[in-house]
C-alpha cells in the first residue's frame, strides 16, 4: 500500500476563505493510501516545504499530494524540494484548489466539497505514480545555419562570437542572399552592399565559422543536441583550396548565359563568381552551360588558369556531420507573377520589372551601373508605374498575406527614380500604405513630397501600345477609371518561402503554416523556436519581414542556440511514451500519428508457439518524444502509454470523481 502525504495549503486567505481547509484535511485522512494529512498557511514557503520534508521523514511517505495553487505555478518548486528527500520528484501530484476552486467559487460549502473531490482525484492518481528519472543527453557544441543570407550570416556571427563553432550552409556559390542584390535600404538609404558585404567578409574570415557554399542538406537524423546531418557539396569544378580568385578564367570563358544574380538583366560566363563581392571570392563552373561539361569541347579556363585549379572531373560529394542545434535561415523568393497575372502580360514585356530586378537596375554594380533605363531600348523612362501587392493580399490569385516590406521599398524605388531622373512621373498603385517601423512613415511622407503620385487602387490590366505600357486601373478614392501610359512598370511582388523549404521542413519534422512558411513554436512567445527541439528560425523563412526585423530575429535565434550550446548536456522530461512490447501488435498507428517522428517500428525476435518469428513493434526515441500522448489514444491494443499520465492514472482520476 502506498503511503501518501496530503498537504493542503491555505495560501494565506486565498484558499482558506472559500475552502474549509480543516474539513478537507480531515476527509483526505480517510482516503485509501493516505498515511498523513496536514495543512499550512503557505506550503510553498521555506517552513512549508520543511514541514513536508519532515513529514516524509517521520511517516515514511513515498508520495505526496499538495492541494494548493495551479501546478503551472509551483509544480517545479515542489519537484525541486523533493530532490532533497527520499521521494522521487515525479511522485508528486498537485490538486489545483486555488485557480480552479477557491478563486472561482463563492459558496464555501460547495467549494469545500469540490476541493475534497479534487484532492480525492489527485490522491487516486498519486497512488499510481511511479518513480521517473530525467535522462540527460549530451550536446554537440556546434550549430548548423541553413541559408547564407543576412539572417544566416547574422545568426552565424552571433553564435560564433559566443565561442561556438558554426557551419554556415548556402546552396549558391556565395553567401549574401537577397540583401547583396539590393541597392539601397530604407528608410536610411544607406547602400546595401556597404553594410552587408563587411558582414559577409566577417563570416568568411571568422575562426569559428565554416562556410559550406554550393551545399545542400540531403538527410538528417537525430534530435536536439545530436543532429546527424548529411550534406551534399555540389561539384564546383574549381579547386578552391588553391584558387586565388584572380578572375582570369571568367574573362576568357566564351559562354554567355543569363545571370541569376541580375535576374536575367545581364549575362555571365559559365565559370563565374555570383557577384564581384562574393564570399568565398572564388569562381565555380555552372555545369549546365559550360561547353566542356556539356559538349566536351572548349577547356579554355583550364588553359588560362595559372594555378591549375580547374578540375572537370569534380563530383558532388556527400558528408555527414553532427550538430547540436540547427538554424533555418532559408529566406524567401519572389512569387512567380508571370504564371499568375496573365492580365499584366505574363512576363512578355521586357520593360516590366520585379522589385528585385529594379534593385539590380538601379544598383551601381548592376548591369547598367545604376542608370535607370528601359531594358528594351536603353532609354530613360519618363513615366514609371509602380504596382504594389502583386500576389500579396490577393487570395484569389496570389497569397492572402501582406508581404510587409513592399510598401517601404516601393516608396524607396519611387524616391530613387525621382532622385536619379528628376522630372519623371512616378505613379504608385496601392491598396493601403503600411509603414509601421522607425522612420518609415516619415520616409513615405518625404517620398510623396518628392513628387510620387499615390493612387489607391489595383491595376486590372497592363498591355503594350507602341512603346508604352498602358496600365488600366481605378482610383478608388475618386471612384474613377485611370489609365497610365508608362514607359516602365515595376511590380512589387509577394514574398513566398524559398524553393526546397518543403523537403527541408519534412526532413527535420518542422511544421509549415498554411502559406508554407515555417511554423514557429508560439506566435507571440516563442517566435524563433520550432516545435522540434533544437531547430530555430531566423528571418523570412518564418514569414515576410524587412531587414531590421530579420536581423533582430536572427540574433534572437542565435541567443537561443547559444543558451542551448552553453550546456554540456541537457535534461529531458521523463514524461514520455513507453511501449509494452508484449502488447504491441506492430500496426504502426502510433508511428503515423506522432508529430515528432519519435516512434519507429523495429523488428524483434519473437515466438509464436514453438516457432521463432520476426515481428515489428513500436519503439520510442526518448530524445524526440515530447510527451504529447497522441500515440496512446491511437494505440489499438493499449500497448503504448504515457509516463506521468498513464491511462490507468487518468482512469483512476475519473473513478475518484464519480465515487
Amino acid at each position, binding site marked *: 500500500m502506498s503511503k501518501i502525504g496530503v498537504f493542503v495549503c491555505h495560501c494565506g486567505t486565498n484558499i482558506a476563505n472559500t475552502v474549509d481547509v480543516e474539513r478537507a484535511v480531515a476527509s483526505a485522512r480517510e482516503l485509501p493510501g493516505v498515511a498523513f494529512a496536514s495543512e499550512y498557511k503557505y506550503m510553498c514557503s521555506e517552513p512549508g516545504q520543511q514541514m513536508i520534508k519532515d513529514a516524509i521523514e517521520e511517516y515514511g511517505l513515498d508520495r505526496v499530494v499538495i492541494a494548493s495553487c495551479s501546478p*503551472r505555478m509551483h509544480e517545479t518548486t515542489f519537484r525541486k524540494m523533493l530532490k532533497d528527500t527520499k521521494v522521487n520528484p515525479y511522485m508528486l501530484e498537485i490538486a489545483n484548489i486555488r485557480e480552479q476552486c477557491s*478563486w*472561482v467559487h463563492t459558496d464555501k460549502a460547495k467549494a469545500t466539497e469540490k476541493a475534497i473531490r479534487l484532492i480525492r482525484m489527485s490522491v487516486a492518481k498519486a497512488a499510481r505514480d511511479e518513480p521517473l528519472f530525467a535522462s540527460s543527453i549530451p550536446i554537440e557544441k556546434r550549430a548548423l545555419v541553413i541559408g547564407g543570407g543576412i539572417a544566416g550570416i547574422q545568426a552565424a556571427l552571433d553564435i560564433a562570437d559566443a565561442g561556438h563553432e558554426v557551419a554556415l550552409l548556402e546552396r549558391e556559390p556565395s553567401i549574401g542572399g537577397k540583401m547583396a542584390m539590393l541597392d539601397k535600404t530604407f528608410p536610411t538609404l544607406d547602400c546595401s552592399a556597404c553594410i552587408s558585404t563587411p558582414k559577409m567578409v566577417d563570416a568568411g574570415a571568422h575562426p569559428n565559422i565554416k562556410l559550406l557554399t554550393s551545399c545542400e542538406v540531403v538527410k538528417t537524423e537525430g534530435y536536439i543536441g545530436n543532429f546527424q546531418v548529411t550534406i551534399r557539396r555540389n561539384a564546383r569544378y574549381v579547386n578552391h583550396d588553391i584558387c586565388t580568385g584572380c578572375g582570369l578564367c571568367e574573362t576568357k570563358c566564351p559562354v554567355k548565359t543569363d545571370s541569376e544574380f541580375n535576374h536575367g538583366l545581364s549575362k555571365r560566363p559559365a565559370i563565374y563568381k555570383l557577384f564581384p563581392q562574393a564570399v568565398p571570392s572564388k569562381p565555380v563552373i555552372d555545369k549546365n552551360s559550360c561547353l566542356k561539361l556539356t559538349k566536351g569541347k572548349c577547356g579554355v579556363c583550364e588553359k588560362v588558369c595559372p594555378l591549375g585549379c580547374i578540375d572537370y572531373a569534380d563530383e558532388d560529394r556527400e558528408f555527414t556531420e553532427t550538430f547540436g542545434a540547427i538554424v533555418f535561415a532559408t529566406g524567401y523568393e519572389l512569387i512567380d507573377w508571370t504564371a499568375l497575372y496573365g492580365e499584366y502580360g505574363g512576363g512578355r514585356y521586357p520593360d516590366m520589372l520585379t522589385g528585385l530586378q529594379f534593385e539590380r537596375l538601379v544598383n551601381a554594380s548592376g548591369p547598367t551601373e545604376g542608370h535607370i533605363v528601359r531594358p528594351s531600348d536603353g532609354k530613360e523612362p519618363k513615366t514609371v508605374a509602380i504596382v504594389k501587392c502583386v500576389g500579396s493580399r490577393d487570395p484569389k490569385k496570389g497569397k492572402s498575406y501582406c508581404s510587409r516590406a513592399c510598401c517601404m521599398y516601393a516608396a524607396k524605388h519611387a524616391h530613387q527614380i525621382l532622385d536619379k531622373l528628376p522630372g519623371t512621373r512616378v505613379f504608385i498603385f496601392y491598396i493601403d500604405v503600411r509603414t509601421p517601423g522607425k522612420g518609415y512613415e516619415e520616409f513615405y511622407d518625404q517620398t510623396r513630397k518628392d513628387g510620387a503620385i499615390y493612387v489607391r487602387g489595383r491595376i486590372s490590366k497592363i498591355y503594350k501600345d507602341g512603346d508604352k505600357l498602358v496600365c488600366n486601373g481605378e482610383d478608388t478614392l475618386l471612384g474613377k477609371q485611370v489609365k497610365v501610359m508608362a514607359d516602365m512598370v515595376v511590380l512589387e511582388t509577394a514574398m513566398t518561402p524559398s524553393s526546397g523549404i518543403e523537403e527541408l521542413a519534412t526532413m527535420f519534422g518542422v511544421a509549415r503554416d498554411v502559406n508554407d512558411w515555417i511554423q514557429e513554436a508560439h506566435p507571440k512567445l516563442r517566435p524563433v523556436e520550432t516545435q522540434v527541439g533544437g531547430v530555430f528560425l531566423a528571418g523570412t523563412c518564418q514569414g515576410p519581414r524587412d531587414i531590421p526585423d530579420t536581423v533582430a530575429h536572427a540574433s534572437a535565434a542565435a541567443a537561443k542556440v547559444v543558451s542551448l550550446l552553453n550546456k554540456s548536456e541537457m535534461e529531458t522530461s521523463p514524461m514520455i511514451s513507453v511501449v509494452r512490447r508484449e502488447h504491441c501488435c506492430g500496426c504502426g498507428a502510433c508511428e503515423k500519428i506522432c*508529430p515528432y517522428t519519435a516512434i519507429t517500428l523495429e523488428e524483434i525476435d519473437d515466438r509464436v508457439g514453438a516457432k521463432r518469428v520476426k515481428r515489428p513493434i513500436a519503439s520510442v526515441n526518448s530524445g524526440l518524444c515530447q510527451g504529447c500522448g*497522441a500515440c496512446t*489514444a491511437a494505440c489499438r491494443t493499449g500497448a503504448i502509454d504515457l509516463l506521468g499520465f498513464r491511462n490507468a492514472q487518468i482512469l483512476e482520476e475519473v473513478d475518484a*470523481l*464519480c465515487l
Partner: protein
Amino acid sequence: MSVKETNDPKIIAFCCNWCTYTGADLAGLNRSHYPENVHIVRVPCSGRVNPQFILRAFRNGCDGVMVCGCHPGDCHYSTGNYFTRRRFTLMKRLLEYNGIDPGRFHARWISGSEAGKFRDTAEEVTAMVRKLGPNTRYREYARREMSADE
C-alpha cells in the same frame, strides 16, 4: 457506488495543459465565477484523451464530459487537436448509439487567454447537462460490477 439522486451534475473536463488548463487558471486569476460542477483533469494534449476515459466517466455516472484543447492550428504539439477533433466527432455518434445523450459531451477549443470563454463554456455545459438530468444509463451495470469486484 453512491450516485446521488440530486440534480447537481458532475462534469469532468479534460483540459490540455497548454491552452485550456492555462485558460482555466486565468479564469481563476480573474475571479470569473462558474459552477462548482466542473472538475478539471489535466492532460498534456487534448489528443491524449482516449475515448475510453469518456466512456468510463459516463459508465460511472458522470453527467457530463468536456474535452478542451488549443484551437485548431494552435496545438502545442502541432497536430494533436486535429486528431481530437476527428476522434470526438465519431465519439458523439458512438455515445448516441449507446443511449447517452450527445448533449452530455462537448469538445471545445479554449486558448490560454480565453478565460471568459472557459467560464462561459463551463456555465453553458453545466446548464445543458443539468437540463438533461442525472445520467443513470449505466448505473445498474456499474453497481453490479462494483459488487462483483467486492
